[in-house]
């Protein structure tokens, strides 16, 4: 049972069954596009990835997850020769970074029993009506004179004890302000030398991260639209989107100090707000994720993106392993284990900035004639193997077909992580890859093994076969061969190629003049459809602005304490409409010239059009093995 796995706290994932995730799949609804990628709103649920294991039913289905040796196998961007499940990488011990002592929050309270200062109350001053605060008295006969002599005598005593406390406190606050001050100093040009990491570590870092160092003292660095930092509870850098982790280690130390300061008071930091930007903290022990965003997104949306980053890290390590590492060694430098994966995280962040899938918590399908999709799906379904759990065919970031084991459901977040993995590397094009991967929403304690390959060199069609058995490369590879064979036999390859030539449809097909763009999400299936973003959203920043408007409407519609059913927004450059029901969500962008009556008509027309086209835009009959 999955729940037991966590308790063992072992490096090994036991040879047990990976029970499916959330148990949400029990509540399926009768939608036209039922349960393919199941799940409601993507995981804003709290903390523990520990899951309820589903009752005995599923345990018989598969024996997932062979013992996993330490670390995860490196990506096997293999030669066509095939499998290369390499051993562990970079899990060596030692090599602790000398840079940062962990900020421990010392107990600053010296003594609970402070002498009560006599006369410190204010009764003497209460001679004026409490509701009046204007000063009716001249300074001479004011409240100052009314203070009792005791009160004055009390002051020196108070001060001396205060001195003591301030001393104690200064130790603690060095971590808070002190670090910030150090950092400021560091930021000042000409003084970098002081806190520069030793050349050795710096070199190691640059080798590891493989991205060019960005000067964190420059305005350009400050003005990035969204910074993302990941750090361990010891305040050690794990990831930074811009600038090297080394140069930012003191900033991250301050972040951790802030987090632990509030935790020491049984409180939790959520976010900091300033003019033009917000800082959002997400705590997922043993990691802390922080974003500094200049976007219009809500705090919740930014936190949601940080959770994606967290899941991304889990997908490489598993929750079990991540916890084990930090239990063994609190100030472990996680970067050695994640070396080479920065690119995947970078890609995920870039993807989230312009792909609405993440905002919608849903997956987009490649528009495809139902007959062709059915042929593809049944070919996939027939090319099964005992250890296969999911067979996924995708193009770009759109889903072509997904076949799953009975009773096993793939959460949109897991699917997004897979999409991101594939889109972040071109090397998958070069052959068959066999890589361990954790699907954190499905089961955060064990690895699957994914067979990743492109069907043909020129075609943007990627096949992903998720297996439970590490040793099954050849079997799974054979599944691919069988799938391709069936595809050929059914003669749908041509039609598929044709469809790939136009992976997006134009909004003009809907035939509504003022309609510029829309997003329609079917809640029960976790799928959404959306046309290509066209003029006037041509420039990259215009596209992001449009997504920003959708984010804005989405955050208002889904506000946790004040959700909304309908929103109609009129701006100078476009009008937008949001409509959220139990079954679907619709976001529509109109030209600014249209009227509200026109907008309502357009929605009715649009809904009719989607219904008419649904078998092309969605996967209506998902297959199981």
């Amino acid at each position: 049972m999955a729940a037991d796995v966590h308790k063992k706290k072992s490096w090994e994932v036991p040879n047990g069954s990976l029970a499916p995730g959330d148990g949400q799949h029990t509540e399926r609804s009768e939608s036209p596009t039922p349960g393919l990628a199941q799940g409601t709103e993507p995981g804003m649920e709290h903390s523990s990835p520990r899951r309820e294991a589903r009752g005995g039913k599923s345990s018989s289905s598969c024996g997932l997850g062979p013992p996993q040796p330490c670390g995860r196998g490196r990506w096997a961007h293999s030669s066509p020769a095939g499998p290369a499940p390499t051993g562990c990488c970079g899990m060596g011990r030692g090599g602790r970074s000398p840079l940062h002592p962990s900020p421990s929050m010392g107990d600053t309270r010296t003594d609970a029993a402070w002498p009560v200062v006599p006369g410190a109350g204010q009764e003497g001053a209460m001679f004026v009506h409490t509701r009046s605060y204007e000063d009716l008295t001249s300074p001479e006969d004011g409240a100052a004179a009314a203070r009792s002599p005791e009160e004055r005598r009390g002051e020196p005593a108070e001060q001396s004890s205060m001195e003591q406390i301030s001393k104690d406190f200064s130790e603690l606050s060095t971590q808070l302000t002190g670090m910030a001050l150090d950092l400021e100093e560091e930021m000042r040009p000409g003084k970098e030398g002081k806190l520069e990491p030793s050349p050795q570590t710096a070199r190691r870092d640059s080798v590891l991260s493989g991205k060019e160092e960005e000067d964190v003292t420059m305005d350009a660095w400050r003005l990035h639209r969204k910074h993302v930092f990941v750090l361990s509870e010891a305040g050690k850098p794990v990831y930074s989107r811009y600038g090297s982790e080394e140069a930012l280690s003191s900033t991250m130390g301050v972040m951790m100090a802030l987090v632990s300061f509030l935790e020491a008071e049984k409180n939790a930091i959520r976010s900091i707000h300033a003019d033009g930007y917000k800082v959002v903290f997400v705590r997922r022990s043993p990691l802390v994720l922080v974003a500094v965003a200049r976007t219009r997104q809500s705090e919740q949306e930014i936190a949601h993106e940080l959770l994606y980053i967290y899941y991304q890290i889990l997908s490489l390590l598993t929750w079990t392993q991540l916890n084990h590492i930090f239990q063994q060694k609190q100030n472990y430098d996680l970067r050695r284990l994640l070396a080479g994966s920065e690119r995947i995280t970078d890609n995920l962040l870039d993807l989230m900035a312009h792909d609405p899938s993440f905002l919608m918590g849903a997956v987009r399908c490649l528009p495809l004639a139902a007959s062709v999709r059915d042929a593809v799906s049944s070919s996939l379904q027939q090319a099964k193997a005992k250890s296969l759990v999911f067979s996924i065919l995708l193009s770009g970031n759109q889903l072509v077909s997904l076949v799953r084991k009975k009773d096993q459901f793939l959460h949109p977040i897991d699917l997004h992580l897979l999409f991101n993995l594939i889109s972040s590397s071109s090397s998958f094009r070069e052959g068959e890859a066999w890589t361990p991967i954790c699907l954190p929403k499905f089961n955060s304690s064990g690895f699957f093994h994914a067979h990743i390959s492109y069907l043909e060199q020129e075609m943007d069609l990627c096949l992903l076969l998720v297996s439970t058995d590490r040793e099954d490369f050849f079997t799974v590879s054979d599944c691919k061969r069988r799938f391709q064979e069936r595809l050929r036999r059914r003669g749908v390859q041509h039609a598929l190629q044709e469809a790939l030539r136009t992976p997006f449809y134009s909004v003009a097909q809907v035939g509504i003049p003022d309609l510029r763009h829309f997003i329609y999400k079917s809640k029960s299936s976790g799928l959404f459809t959306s046309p290509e973003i066209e003029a006037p959203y041509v420039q990259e920043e215009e596209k992001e602005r449009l997504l920003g408007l959708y984010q804005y409407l989405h955050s208002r519609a889904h506000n946790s304490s004040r959700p909304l059913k309908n929103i109609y927004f009129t701006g100078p450059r476009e009008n937008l409409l949001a409509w959220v029901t139990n079954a679907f969500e619709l976001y529509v962008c109109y030209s600014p010239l249209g009227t509200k009556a026109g907008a309502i008509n357009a929605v009715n027309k649009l809904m009719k059009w989607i219904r008419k086209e649904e078998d092309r835009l969605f996967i209506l009959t998902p297959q199981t093995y």
Partner: protein
Amino acid sequence: MVSGGCRPQAQDGGGGGGRPGEAARSDPSQFLHLQPQARAQRGREKKILFYHPNEVEKNEKIRNVGLCEAIVQFTRTFSPTKPAKSLHTQKNRQFFHEPEENFWMVMVVRNPIIEKHKDGKPVYEYQEEELLDKVYSSVLQQCYSMYKLFNGTFLRAMEDGGVKVLKERLEKFFHRYLQTLHLQSCDLLDVFCGISFFPLDKMTYLKIQSFINRMEESLNIVKYTAFLYNDQLIWSGLEQDDMRILYKYLTTSLFPRHMEPELAGRDSPIRAEMPGNLQHYGRFLTGPLNLNDPDTKCRFPKIFVNTDDTYEELHLIVYKAMSAAVCFMIDASIPPTLEFCRKLDSIVGPQLTVLASDICEQYNINKRISGAEKEPQFKFIYFNHMNLAEKSTIHMRKTPSVSLASVHPDLMKILGDINSDFSRVDEDEEIIVKAMSDYWVVGKKSDQRELYVILNQKNVNLIEVNEEVKKLCATQFNNIFFLD
């Protein structure tokens, strides 16, 4: 160290202001100033100029102040010139304001708690999305403005007598002022802190104008004058920002305190003391209570205006006859004598009485013309950033210092959400939303004006909502262009 009293009463609702000395089980709201300047050598606690509640343990005060400093410093990493304005935590929200260089004000407001039952045990859960940032940061800014109105700037106090004087002034002012804050009933109107203007025809307006001119002529030491009717402003000689805060003081503190004698009419105890004065209804709201008593003290509150440039210190004389109130402000260097007060009473009293009844009459005529008021299908709030004009049919200012909204708090918060969305961009926008309760809420921003409407009908569609709002704009704001 001294203390005042203020707690947001998100939970127990009842009662007036917070009681000092009452330790709350969960975090009380704290209110503190600090001054990060003299750091190292002086010790941290010296920087705390005022802290409420004072009962808080010393080192906890120091820790809390340290956290604020750390947050502000930390955000300078990302924006050296625009540091943090608020901090959200699970339990509370903290608001930071630097009204004068190196002087910081911080206000901590606790998130509301709801009690839930889990396995028979009560579990407390913080509602983290209930407080609106803009509302409370505006409240904090107004705290400073109000302090400054009656005490001048922090810096001036430091120059006058160092930290000691400043601490005394802060203590004296905030101890009382904080008790008048009703944090749980703050809403969008606190963001605007606007001025309600009295609608008037030209003729009456000219009458008032000439009245003010005559008064300033006869009472030549008067520097500025302001005229209000029915708690609404008609004329002011002060700068907008000074008038805004003075208006808030008058309408939320001074006038409500003098409401009872007003309602009691001429039999009020104050009038009874002045039997010889039957030809008019004028009386002082600030200053002498009884002009016939030669020992009465002519003490008026001092206010500070134009603190950015000329820095003027003034005596505030508020004189009222029926619903009309006039504020005369005279230079603080000229102490108002009893003679002056008597002269003012004898000149202003009769004329203001006549004027007040004129305005009342005119107002009733206008009301009759505009037709009998039916129960309108909507309630609205309007605010104009240019002249600070504010109008609300949502609020009933019946109780002193608390403005009660007549709609569900969730709808008020949606208005607040819309307002904060509007302020993020400088463009004209309109937004119509349907809440879960099926009420429609409309926000419009055009030029410097903002209009918020809550519709009372539930079963209407977007187009009908639009029609209603158009009608409203046509009747109430016919000369204002709103983006359609």
